[in-house]
């Protein structure tokens, strides 16, 4: 039965995409029915599959279940099968992708209702769902790569959805090009895997690379022991990570994600917060034994992850565009996930991926609702006091902010605390230290956002002020539906394990770590990780307390500076103090405001210096390469022109040549003979 159901998850949105692309234009305002219906059905099937897999029902068991449907490339020893594989990791991703995808589809019915490209938007959204689902379900690196490019394509189409806007078109191009840099790494990684083990099936390749089974194909004599590979395993790991860096926007390929906010807000929520940017995390988690076999590559992952986290968080502190704050926040949280993968806490990374997907999706959809209410205004300096005017949006976004700030018992607290705790216990104290600073910043910029947007005096354009309205229920319902997991998901997935389980006298691992244990078993064994008993009154309790404390510090600091209006707690915003504080650290303030000049650096590197190099190469091509060829031709023609004068056509001149030649030959013979 599942052989049939699993491909349906991909095929239903594909049918929706093809249908809408073909006849959507004629459907007008009804264009959403088929795409949303297709995703709804896919959601139902996906939940069934995910539930069956997570409960270990036949045929999934603990190891997952895969089935090959079609031999795509049968070419001697190079064979690529198109197959789907579902294990608990895929199931977790299916839950995130399908649930948020469905809610974003529903939300878009309201958000995009006035847009002339209504049908086109839904066609693209369905194309994205096809790509993303193919990415998580595929069983072959090559098929993953195809899906990888397809999500890039749909991301490009959706960022540039309002293509008449120049900034949107440029942002789409930027995202595509920056992603391409990472994709080159991924493509090389796939080639390296094939060179090493001769198969592209993910499970076989991982097993062969880590020495579980002998290699396939052209290297049958090569018994892998990790050292005998033609291409060392750490190179493979870093190449795969390069792909993950591009898709998940990690430093230095992070520049495309903030610009991607030019797309419609549902797109930002679905693609650039909850699903596509997680593809990199998923890929590293999926290939965890490869990374675990090369500890130095794990250190690279952790370093880049935590560096991106603090870099993006520091930028988010001062941005005034509501969507850009959330975009940098996404970067920062993705950095957390990679840091978590890098320190070997694989299941904590997936935990954070799930909770972050829900609360960041919620925050983005909420920001879309805010932007809708104040008539497409995105600058937070021209908002304020919206809490009373758009109460549903306010309440759900407040819940999302508490969740991401890491205040217990909402979802973000559990996953973030697990990441930080694991980092500390796995010997990456410096990752923990930076992570704590990032946690303060996270809480601060989120409540800065809430303070500027919802609390305090209204700074909305007086012309717009009377028209502020709450979004229709087709938009607020998805917000509330996302708020539920944003509040509860952390608690549910961590029970009966730490940190709450032991307090209630429960034992055993958390629900999610239990699910993911078989997936990450090999990676954890390669790293030599052992589960220590959770001590609420020991190290773990202290780390827990630290997490909560820094979150509260961040929240209180934001309240002091940007005000609060929460029941009995009433503080006024304090703009003078903000100005004084930013004047005290002018360099840091300007660095944050200018995003640490990365766009300028890229401009300098690739536009100015790269342009010079290109101009030089053009000159070289024109002057040296072309002219060499031209000069050869000119010389030949010139030589012919001048030499033809020798050919006078007069018999006596030729005879003179013969005579002179004869004399020279005879003379030289005599001279030589005389010696």
């Amino acid at each position, binding site marked *: 039965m599942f052989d049939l159901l699993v491909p349906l998850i991909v095929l239903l949105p594909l049918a929706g995409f093809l249908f809408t692309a073909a006849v959507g234009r004629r459907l007008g305002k009804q264009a959403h029915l088929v795409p949303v219906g297709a995703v709804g059905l896919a959601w139902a099937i996906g939940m069934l599959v995910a539930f069956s897999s997570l409960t270990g029902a036949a045929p999934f068991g603990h190891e997952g279940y895969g089935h090959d449907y079609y031999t795509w490339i049968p070419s001697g020893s190079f064979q690529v099968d198109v197959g789907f594989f579902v294990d608990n990791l895929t199931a977790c991703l299916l839950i995130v992708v399908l649930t948020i995808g469905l809610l974003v589809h529903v939300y878009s019915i309201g958000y995009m209702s006035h847009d002339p490209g209504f049908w086109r938007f839904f066609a693209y959204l369905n194309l994205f769902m096809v790509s993303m689902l193919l990415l998580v379900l595929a069983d072959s690196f090559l098929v993953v790569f195809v899906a990888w490019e397809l999500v890039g394509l749909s991301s490009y189409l959706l960022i540039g959805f309002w293509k008449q806007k120049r900034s949107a078109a440029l942002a789409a191009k930027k995202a595509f090009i920056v992603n391409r840099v990472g994709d080159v790494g991924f493509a090389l990684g796939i080639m390296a895997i094939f060179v090493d083990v001769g198969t592209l099936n993910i499970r076989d390749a991982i097993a062969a690379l880590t020495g579980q089974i002998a290699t396939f194909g052209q290297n049958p004599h090569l018994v892998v022991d990790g050292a005998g590979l033609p291409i060392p395993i750490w190179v493979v790991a870093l190449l795969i990570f390069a792909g993950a860096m591009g898709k998940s926007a990690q430093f230095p390929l992070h520049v495309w994600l903030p610009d991607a906010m030019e797309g419609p807000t549902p797109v930002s929520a679905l693609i650039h917060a909850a699903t596509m940017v997680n593809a990199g995390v998923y890929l590293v988690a999926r290939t965890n034994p490869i990374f675990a076999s090369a500890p130095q590559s794990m250190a690279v992952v952790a370093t880049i992850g935590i560096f991106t986290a603090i870099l993006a968080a520091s930028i988010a502190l001062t941005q005034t565009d509501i969507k850009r704050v959330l975009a940098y926040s996404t970067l920062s949280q993705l950095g957390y996930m990679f840091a978590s993968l890098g320190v070997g806490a694989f299941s904590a990374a997936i935990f954070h991926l799930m909770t972050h997907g829900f609360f960041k999706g919620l925050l983005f959809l909420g920001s879309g609702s805010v932007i809708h209410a104040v008539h497409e205004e995105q600058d937070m300096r021209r908002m304020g006091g919206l809490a009373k005017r758009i109460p549903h949006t306010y309440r759900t976004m407040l819940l999302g902010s508490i969740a991401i700030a890491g205040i217990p018992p909402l979802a973000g607290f559990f996953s973030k605390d697990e990441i930080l705790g694991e980092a500390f216990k796995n010997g990456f104290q410096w990752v923990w230290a930076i992570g704590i600073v990032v946690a303060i910043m996270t809480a601060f910029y989120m409540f800065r956002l809430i303070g500027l947007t919802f609390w305090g005096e209204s700074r909305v354009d007086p012309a717009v002020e009377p028209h502020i309205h709450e979004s229709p229920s087709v938009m607020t319902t998805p917000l509330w539906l996302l708020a539920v997991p944003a509040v509860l998901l952390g608690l549910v997935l961590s029970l009966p394990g730490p940190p709450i389980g032991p307090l209630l006298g429960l034992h055993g691992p958390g629900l999610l770590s239990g699910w993911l244990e078989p997936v990450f078993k090999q990676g954890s064994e390669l790293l030599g990780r052992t589960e220590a008993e959770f001590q609420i009154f020991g190290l773990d309790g202290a780390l827990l307390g630290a997490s909560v404390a820094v979150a509260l510090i961040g929240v209180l600091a934001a309240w002091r500076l940007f005000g609060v209006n929460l029941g009995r707690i009433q503080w006024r915003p304090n703009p003078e103090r903000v100005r004084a504080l930013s004047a005290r650290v002018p360099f840091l303030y300007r660095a944050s405001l200018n995003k640490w000049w990365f766009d300028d650096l890229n401009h300098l590197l690739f536009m100015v210096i790269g342009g010079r190099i290109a101009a030089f190469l053009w000159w070289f091509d024109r002057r040296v390469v072309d002219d060499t060829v031209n000069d050869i031709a000119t010389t030949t023609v010139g030589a012919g022109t001048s030499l033809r004068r020798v050919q*006078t056509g007069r*018999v*006596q001149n030729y005879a003179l040549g013969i005579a002179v030649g004869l004399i020279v030959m005879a003379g030289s013979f005599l001279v030589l003979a005389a010696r």
Partner: protein
Amino acid sequence: MIRVFVGSALAAAFIIGLGLIGLAAGGSHSLNAYLTLSGILFTIGMFGFLARRNAISMLMSIELMLNAVNLSIIGFTSFAATPEFRANGSVIALLVMAVAAAEATVGLSIILAIYRNKKTPLVDEYDAMSQ
């Protein structure tokens, strides 16, 4: 009239000069005298072929060179060490003369054919090959 006398005198001086050169080279009993004469004749023929513009004169110069070669061949064989070879040179010379006659016939008819087209016996006007 003067020119005839001057020309005859120059010719006589030339022949006497040749005889002196022959004597200096060793007289009629020396191979060198014949070879010297042959060389001088060949050089004159070559100079005539290269320098004269008239096609007929060039043909005559060719004859001169051929006969210079004939003279050297006869000279070599006359001084050969084995008596049986001494007649061979004359046979070769006769053969060369026959070939030279045939060649002169062909050459003259070619010159006549060109002359009919070009209306001139001067070879530097025959430049059709340079086009």
